[in-house]
């Protein structure tokens, strides 16, 4: 908890320097939660009636954890905010959807392929967009999102704005949610683990250096361009994979499902609430917002006001807790050990 030392350099005091002494409690907690999530679908008699609802909610929560953790690699660690990351979500969804339609391969098996396609696409895009810094980069990601959305809206091969219908998954109604749940669990655990590994690697260190001062990082001998493009394309993998599973669980693909900026907004918001650039932050943020959304939809129904709430929370967090939950707690030295995954 108190392993945090304030950096002495002026201007970067918001970025704590972390000494590598892990606390044991976090392994127990993280392992326990993962085990619990893995065993959850087996507890059908215990859950009873709302079984499918619980699994659906779990799938959604895990999806957001995966997406936000992946976004965090570029948006958090590297400090390059992408407002078009759901492009990879859609590309993953369509890749696996097309593989299912043309080759009969289940997206539950091909989601890694979808992830790889997203990575390749991210690499090519990153080569261009990461030539810029700061605001210009963010703008280019918005332009990318609208451009890709426009292409999918008008591309006959992928069904245009009507989208594609996928064959129904070959599972009984009783257990239909289970495979999707497990696939998302694998993706979510993978993305959080990836975030952890990156945070503890030389690569992660380079990314943080870029976030703090790119020019200095460059002077220090970091190949910033390569690091940035690597971070951007790697961060596409689990977003694409999540898109593949999500699209199949809906059994239809439509541009409006994937390419609306609201999805990017959620990713950004979850990461900010939890704490950008931390491993645990995106997970905490995703769980909080999914829970909040579930409550507000069940209480007030789904209205246009949801997006007002999203925007309002974003403003409030930015103005009052720009470091997010994990970041603020750590700054004050109050972060419980089990939440300190960095």
């Amino acid at each position: 908890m108190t392993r945090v030392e304030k950096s002495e350099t002026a201007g970067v005091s918001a970025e704590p320097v972390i000494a590598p002494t892990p606390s044991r409690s976090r392994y127990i907690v993280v392992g326990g939660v993962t085990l619990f999530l893995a065993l959850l679908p087996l507890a059908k008699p215990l859950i009873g009636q709302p079984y499918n609802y619980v699994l659906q909610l779990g799938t959604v929560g895990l999806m957001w954890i995966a997406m936000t953790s992946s976004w965090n690699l570029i948006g958090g660690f590297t400090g390059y905010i992408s407002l078009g990351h759901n492009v990879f979500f859609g590309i993953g969804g369509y890749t696996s959807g097309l593989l299912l339609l043309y080759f009969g391969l289940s997206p539950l098996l091909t989601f890694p392929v979808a992830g790889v396609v997203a990575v390749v696409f991210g690499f090519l895009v990153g080569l261009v967009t990461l030539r810029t810094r700061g605001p210009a980069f963010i703008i280019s990601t918005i332009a990318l999102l609208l451009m890709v959305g426009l292409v999918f809206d008008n591309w006959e091969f992928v069904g245009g704005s009507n989208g594609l219908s996928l064959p129904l998954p070959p599972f009984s109604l009783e257990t239909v949610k289970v495979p999707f749940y497990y696939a998302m669990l694998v993706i979510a655990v993978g993305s959080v683990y990836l975030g952890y590994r990156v945070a503890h690697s030389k690569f992660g260190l380079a990314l943080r250096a870029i976030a703090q001062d790119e020019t200095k990082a460059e002077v220090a001998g970091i190949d910033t361009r390569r690091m940035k493009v690597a971070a951007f394309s790697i961060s596409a993998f689990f977003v694409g994979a999540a898109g593949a599973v999500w699209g199949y669980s809906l059994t239809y693909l439509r541009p409006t499902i994937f390419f609306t900026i609201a999805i990017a907004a959620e990713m950004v918001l979850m990461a900010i609430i939890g704490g950008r650039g931390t491993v645990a932050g995106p997970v905490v943020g995703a769980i909080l917002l999914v829970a909040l959304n579930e409550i507000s939809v069940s209480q007030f129904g789904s209205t246009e006001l949801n997006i007002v709430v999203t925007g309002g929370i974003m403003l409030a967090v930015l103005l009052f807790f720009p470091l997010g939950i994990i970041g603020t707690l750590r700054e004050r030295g109050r972060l419980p050990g089990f939440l300190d995954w960095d």
Partner: protein
Amino acid sequence: VTHFVQVAILGLLLGGVYALMASGLTLMFGVMRIVNLAHGVFIIAACYVAYYLFIGPGWDPFLTLIVTVPVFFLLGVLVYRSFFPRIEGSARFGEMTVLLTFGLALIVEGLLSFFFTGTFRSTNPPYATEAILIGDLFIPKAQLYASITSLVLLIALWGFLYFTRTGYAVRATMQNRTAAQIVGVNVRRISTIAFGIGMAMAGASGSLLSFLFPFFPNSHWRWIAILLSLIVLGGLGSLKGAIIGALFLAVIAAFVSDLLGPTWAPITFFGALFLVLLIRPQGLFGKEARVG
């Protein structure tokens, strides 16, 4: 050849309006380094103001300018004062402004769709469907009037920036914020004014846009993406760059939409953005970026 000239004219007329919309955005960036993602949604909000003044008291959309311009100026002052001084010292100011205005855009969009629903609307003054014929050339009145109005407003902005003391101060702040402060410019006050003017431009654009294109709350994303592409193309913060970029690309977009259909027109802006980033990351008229 006539067809070629025709398409070019239509593009140029629209380009004038694009230039007006982009000018406010680029001014905000130039003076305060604020990337205002909410610019588009405020333009759409102004469209609704114009729309209700049109269907209610029956005001001509051009007459609504006398409401939208001052109201949005004040709104801009209010928005600037309530949010931006708080984050002024933050280490990653540029990034903060993007996120902050992103949140703001979501709020305004949500409120607009709550009150006005998601249906397409537009004002339809009588001249919206009329045109002037010069020989074989067909010049739609709506676009022509809107373009002339934009030109007048842009000239007024230019006059303000180059021939008034406040204008000098604004330009000085654009060039070097710290130095401006040293020579006695009240940077906070200038920033507030500049933000207000930027928003007034958004308000004016809304009045004009209300009869040029159908609008609905969510449509602001398409506009902001186009406008942001324009200002990156022109070199962030360069007013001249934004205006030239707007005219140039609007003409190209007109040809694209002539060849491939209007749905593909926006791709011109995004495609051009990526092309320019590939060749010249700092934009056509930009200096080497020093924002991080």
